[in-house]
């Protein structure tokens, strides 16, 4: 019905996603808070953590890993989550509470176009940010980028970004107002960074903390990305089980988002 009534002047839906994407990117890049927390802060963490521990080595699964080699995949995990999850939850909660989402739903633009565009925006930022992290690691700290496992690393980045986008749409549906989005999300994600090997290498964590972390997707994404940088890895470097657990979390997020996601303000 809708297709037959769409006038010939209408952009195709695929072009409409591109149209929306341009503005969604502009919205983030022009927002000082998004710029700092999503793009600059992960880079600060990379420089800070590699400098703090110097040329320290960590023992992971019985072999020594150079400090900077450990933190490039670790901060990549943080970068993916900062763009696809933290920033996404905060922006969609804000846009929902400000009535922006409701107004967009009053126009003929299909809901899926808006969701696809916003998720793609996060994914693009995640990929660019991870690329910058890897390049800084290579140039500043001489981190070896193993060409044989690079496809596995890229796969991990894409799966991680997609899964955390789904989780973001689910999480936003539980947050009632704009002001509480930032503290709630940070309260959830910061402890997970610490127990999942993002900030503190796993060889320094107790087994209890590691067990708790293994329930959540942060640790598994971190393990999957680390595997690609681990000099001991042989073969393609695809961490099947870890990625499957991340996918499962993403799928659960998607189901919850489909069930609960709202376009109208929740606080009145």
């Amino acid at each position, binding site marked *: *019905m*809708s297709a037959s*009534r*769409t*006038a*010939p*002047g*209408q*952009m195709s839906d695929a072009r*409409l996603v591109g*149209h*929306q994407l341009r*503005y969604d990117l*502009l*919205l983030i890049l*022009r*927002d000082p808070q998004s710029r700092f927390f999503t793009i600059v802060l992960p880079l600060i963490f990379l420089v800070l953590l590699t400098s703090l521990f110097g040329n320290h080595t960590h023992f992971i699964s019985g072999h020594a890993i150079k400090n900077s080699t450990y933190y490039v995949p670790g901060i990549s995990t943080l970068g993916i989550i900062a763009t696809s999850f933290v920033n996404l939850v905060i922006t969609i909660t804000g846009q929902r509470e*400000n*009535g*922006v989402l*409701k*107004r*967009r*739903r*009053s*126009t*003929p*633009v*299909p809901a899926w176009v808006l969701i696809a565009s916003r998720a793609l925006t996060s994914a693009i930022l995640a990929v660019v940010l991870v690329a910058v992290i890897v390049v800084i690691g290579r140039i500043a700290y001489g981190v070896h980028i193993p060409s044989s496992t690079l496809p596995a690393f890229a796969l991990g980045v894409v799966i991680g970004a997609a899964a955390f986008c789904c989780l973001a749409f689910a999480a936003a549906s539980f947050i009632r107002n704009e002001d509480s989005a930032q503290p709630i999300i940070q309260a959830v994600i910061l402890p997970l960074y610490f127990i999942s090997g993002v900030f503190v290498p796993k060889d320094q964590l107790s087994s209890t903390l590691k067990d708790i972390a293994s329930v959540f997707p942060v640790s598994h994404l971190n393990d999957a990305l680390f595997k690609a940088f681990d000099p001991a890895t042989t073969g393609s470097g695809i961490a099947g089980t870890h990625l499957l657990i991340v996918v499962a979390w993403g799928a659960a997020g998607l189901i919850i988002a489909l069930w609960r996601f709202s376009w*109208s*303000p929740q606080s009145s």
Partner: protein
Amino acid sequence: MIGTGGAVGEAVIEVSGLRMSYDGIEAVRGIDLRVSRGEIFTFLGPNGAGKTTTVEILEGHRRRTDGEVRVLGVDPEHADRWWRSQVGVVLQSSRVEPQLTVRECLELYAGYYPAPRSVQEVIELVGLKKRSEVRCGQLSGGQQRRVDVALALIGDPELVFLDEPTTGFDPSARRSAWEMIDGLRRLGKTVFLTTHYMDEAEALADRIVVIKAGTLVAEGTPATLGGRDHAPYQISFSLPRGVAITELPSGLGHARVLDGSSKVVIESAEVMPALQTLSAWAIQRGYEVSDLLVRRPALEDVYLGLTESSK
């Protein structure tokens, strides 16, 4: 198909027996409405009377409990893309994307529609020509509201919902918004306006409907609402210095002092004989009667009478 270029007078909105309950409490208790093409239809009512609930049902943002609703011939609960392209909405409270300029914001929304109006034209229509390159976050409240209105018009809709569009406007911004809304009528658009400013309703409305506690209590034009056209005239004036109200000629009927002032009001069905009696009395005694005013009850008086009585 009801689409562009339909006849004036044809129904654009038809509502019968509309009901809406939240948790067993009825916010809308069976209302009937008919809005014709090309009119500015004004929906008045106190806060909590069911105004916004009704508007949200008509806009397709809320599912009703019961009743028949047709907007542009379609049930808004089954709105498709064509329908959404024909309906412009100014929500009661919504912010515009603060990081985009006025022009970028309009270009974004223009892309959603099959046949949008020119961005420049709409910017000029809402009076934001000088601010078009400013980011929306830096605009004043009234200017942001104009962007809201611009976004509702960019798709060149047949029907525009304006939910309290001038709240927070200064008087001159209000005037220009009225001119703009009046311009929509000249373009043959249908406007569904909710407001709580009586002067706004009086300036714009072709027809007014008043809702109170979920039921419609009155319908009419600004001149006829609530029997305003049959209500007695009110003749008011200031009493000459040192003259008591009891000294007025008896032929004037009942006179009362207006609250907290030296003004006197007389209600009369026939203005000329009353004025003749008054002026004969004043001339004879050499009094000056100042601030003389003859009018029907103000729309606000009628509205307050309709919505406050038997509360």
